[in-house]
């Protein structure tokens, strides 16, 4: 006899495989639909209480008061918190699981970094405060700069670039400034391998250079002989990614650098993949003249759904004098100096024998300070020994994925030896009509973010897997099992894969429609439509 007078008793109903009819809300338990703020908010609602201020006198807008409605929608604080919390749950994230986007280095973001960046001494400081009031902030920039120089074996570093591509531009502008200083502004060609990130040729073209391809060898690396044959008095630089986007170390980089230098050019290295070699190889030892470092990749500042990034550029002795303003430097008295336009000449004379010849300013202030504090926190946590372990575990994890899947997926360069931090597969051997995209979407249903797809361009239907060092073996084994299963379905021609994902907040989206008839802002529904309904 039950002691619960309501009649409730623990009970498991037998499983029912029939799908229920669509409900009232369109929600599915924890999967919650959320309208746009413009559909649920209005111009009268606000989620803030403003401080009372005694109004004094008439406004002084010069007759420019904004009288027409702006069209902003407001929500109360509880509604705001719910709106964004619901939206957040429609995102995949590293915090949820392995995020194997090749070339993107999606590693764990330690929360200590977040805490440190929010210390009021860093977060609540204005970039134009008198320098005596910001010695600690300048100290962070300088300490991080010191680590970046030591880890790369380079001579100097430009800290202000806002992201990787901005850093590339910084490096290329240093090269251009150096060439012009030498009176060799006629060098107009930059050589870029086909496997490079799209930002490389875009950057070179922006700076006024002509871009030419460098051929690759069958084992996925720059063809040294072909490169040497192309070198000459019109070559300004080569841009090389190392490790490259096929996940391979450019064995001949030192020889390439020597050849390029002998021909009067400079070597730009895309440092997007520095995570693979940090603490084990210093690009400076390979003859690199400039390399950007994505702090949001190797040094774990969060990607935040597409930024902010941060792209300091380490520079060789030849290029350091051309670094952009402002920069910071510590002098022998221990004081950290902020060098802006007005002090550059004086500082150069005092401390650099007058050799500084900055190409100018790239951004309004000092760079991504909030990312500097996070990156420095990360670096200090790891130390020189931990960073070396980072590279080793990143490479170990990638090779483990490569060797665990090469029997089921085509791995074009696997025969040539180990990979670095990422494993590259192709779409060869899939059933007729099945593609890399189907594998990616199938992985979504398995609860994983897909790998990078269709990049690099040199491999057909490329799938680039970068697990990073912050994944456990158990997580890797689960991912390997999932990718194996999806690959086997694609090889067997499982039709259900063609319409994957089935369990995500949305099915495949119509990107053609989005591009053909761009709807980029929300528009209030036309009133006549309401009348018609």
């Amino acid at each position: 006899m039950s002691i619960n007078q309501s009649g409730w008793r623990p009970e498991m109903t037998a499983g029912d495989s029939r799908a229920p009819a669509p409900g009232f809300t369109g929600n599915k338990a924890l999967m919650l639909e959320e309208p746009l703020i413009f559909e649920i908010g209005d111009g009268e609602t606000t989620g803030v209480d403003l401080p009372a201020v005694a109004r004094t006198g008439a406004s002084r807008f010069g007759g420019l008061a904004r009288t027409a409605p702006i069209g902003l929608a407001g929500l109360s604080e509880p509604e705001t918190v719910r709106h964004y919390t619901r939206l957040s749950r429609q995102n995949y994230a590293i915090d949820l699981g392995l995020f194997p986007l090749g070339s993107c280095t999606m590693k764990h973001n330690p929360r200590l970094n977040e805490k440190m960046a929010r210390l009021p001494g860093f977060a609540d400081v204005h970039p134009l405060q008198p320098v005596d009031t910001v010695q600690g902030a300048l100290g962070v920039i300088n300490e991080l700069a010191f680590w970046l120089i030591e880890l790369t074996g380079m001579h100097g570093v430009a800290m202000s670039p806002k992201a990787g591509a901005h850093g590339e531009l910084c490096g290329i502008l240093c090269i251009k400034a150096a060439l012009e200083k030498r009176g060799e502004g006629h060098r107009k060609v930059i050589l870029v391998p086909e496997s490079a990130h799209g930002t490389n040729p875009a950057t070179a073209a922006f700076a006024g250079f002509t871009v030419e391809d460098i051929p690759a060898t069958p084992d996925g690396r720059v063809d040294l002989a072909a490169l040497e044959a192309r070198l000459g008095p019109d070559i300004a630089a080569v841009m090389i990614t190392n490790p490259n986007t096929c996940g391979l170390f450019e064995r001949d980089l030192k020889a390439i650098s020597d050849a390029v230098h002998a021909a009067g050019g400079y070597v730009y290295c895309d440092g997007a993949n520095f995570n693979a070699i940090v603490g084990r190889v210093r690009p400076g030892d390979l003859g690199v003249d400039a390399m950007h470092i994505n702090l949001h990749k190797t040094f774990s500042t969060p990607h935040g759904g597409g930024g902010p990034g941060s792209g300091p550029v380490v520079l060789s002795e030849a290029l350091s004098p051309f670094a952009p303003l402002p920069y910071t430097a510590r002098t022998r008295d221990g004081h950290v100096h902020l060098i802006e336009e007005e002090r550059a000449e004086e500082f150069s004379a005092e401390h650099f024998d007058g050799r500084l010849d900055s190409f100018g300013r790239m951004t309004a202030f000092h760079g991504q300070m909030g990312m500097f504090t996070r990156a420095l926190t990360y670096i200090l946590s790891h130390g020189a020994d931990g960073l070396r372990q980072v590279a080793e575990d990143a490479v170990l994890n990638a090779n483990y994925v490569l060797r665990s899947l090469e029997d089921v997926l085509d791995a074009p360069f696997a025969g040539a030896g180990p990979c670095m931090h990422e494993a590259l597969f192709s779409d060869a051997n899939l059933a007729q009509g099945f593609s890399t995209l189907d594998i990616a979407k199938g992985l979504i249903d398995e609860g994983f973010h897909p790998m990078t797809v269709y990049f690099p361009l040199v491999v057909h239907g490329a799938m680039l897997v970068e697990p990073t060092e912050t994944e456990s073996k158990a997580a890797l084994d689960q991912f390997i099992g999932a990718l194996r299963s999806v690959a086997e379905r694609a090889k067997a021609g499982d039709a259900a894969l063609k319409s994957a994902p089935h369990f995500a907040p949305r099915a495949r989206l119509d990107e053609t429609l989005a591009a053909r008839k761009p709807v980029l802002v929300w528009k209030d529904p036309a009133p006549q439509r309401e009348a018609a309904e």
Partner: protein
Amino acid sequence: MRYLPLTSADRSEMLSVIGASSIDDLFADVPEAARLSGPVSGLPSHASELAVERHMTALARQNVVAGEVPFFLGCGAYRHHVPASVDHLIQRGEFLTAYTPYQPEIAQGTLQMLFEFQTQVARLLGTDVANASMYDGSTACWEAIGMARRITKRGKAILSSGLHPHYVSVARTMAKYTGDALETALPDLSAETDLDRLIAAIDDDTSCVVVQYPDILGRTADLTPLAEAAQAKKALLIAVVTEPVALGAIRSPGEMGADIVVGEGQSIGVGLQFGGPYVGLMGCKEKYIRQMPGRFCGETVDANGKRGFVLTLSTREQHIRREKATSNICTNSGLCALAFSIHMTLLGEKGLRGLAGINHAAAVAAADRLAAVPGVRLINESFFNEFTLDLGQEARPIVRALADRGILAGVSLGRLYPGADALANGLVVAVTETATEEDVERLASALEEILA
């Protein structure tokens, strides 16, 4: 090492699956001469959370915190109160630790937020459309100049003397390499902006006129005649807004006819952070969208007909177009855009207008109090929350003297325009809702003492 989950047993087992005898085998492609045999020498080893926190906190303590002193700095970065829920929400791991939304089925949170952000920005700036953010205001400004070059196929940009000098420097750096000719001038310490000079300078080679609103000295001017004059010569008007809260009170540049409007979004939701990361705003007329740099989020439907969002018009971008792209930009400022958007949602139209109103009221009161200090003259007839004082003597040493008394008084024009003697006496003072009447009084009385 607390961030590395592999155990030694895992590592051995994995090496045997790979068929390697040691980790060094995996680095076999690295030439012998370039291999480091151990950790980079001369650098410290790993440290505990406690030790790192101690070190960073010691550095943080060496800075004067804006919120702990009377504080009046602006000039491109503004201190506003940010509601607590903003920082809480942007730290949701699903936002913080997501990547660019390349797989839209599992990134609708970021994508919908970007669509909402684009709508908020377009409405605030008064433009038809806006993109999903740029690095910051200064880089958005030179991207706009490049965009005007592509649209007009002309290479001369006329920059207002009221444009932030660091924005001018960035544009000048880039123009060296793109070949654009820039016409620039230094501002005058007067109530008048240089609209007449700009109108007179527009000719058939002009790609664009770039004007800041409110300008570097805090002045506001009606941009309508400038827009008409530019468009009559088939040139574009680019307006730059470094304090977007102002647009809760004064007419938007889009309403006055600007073709492209860029801005620094920092003052809504982001915080000072010693200059970055910030968030660049960029909007334009619909007819120019295919020349816009950066990412767009667009509305579409999924295979079941449900509304959804995707990144779109990417054929402008570097990962598709490579050397023919509209810009080399890849990363945007997504998390700062989220902070901006959440803060804007909390404010709503009513809150933004209210916030703008109290900023202006506080600035008007402060301007009158400071102008009453003997020897001080208020330059501006019009302003929003920032104005310029002529101190009658060089402002830089006075700013330092005030800092010694624990007051961060503003930005001296000598810092922004080194070598420009005519501007050396200028002090730009920003007064937001965070400055109390007592703060203003402390600044005024300290100035009275120093100038006496």
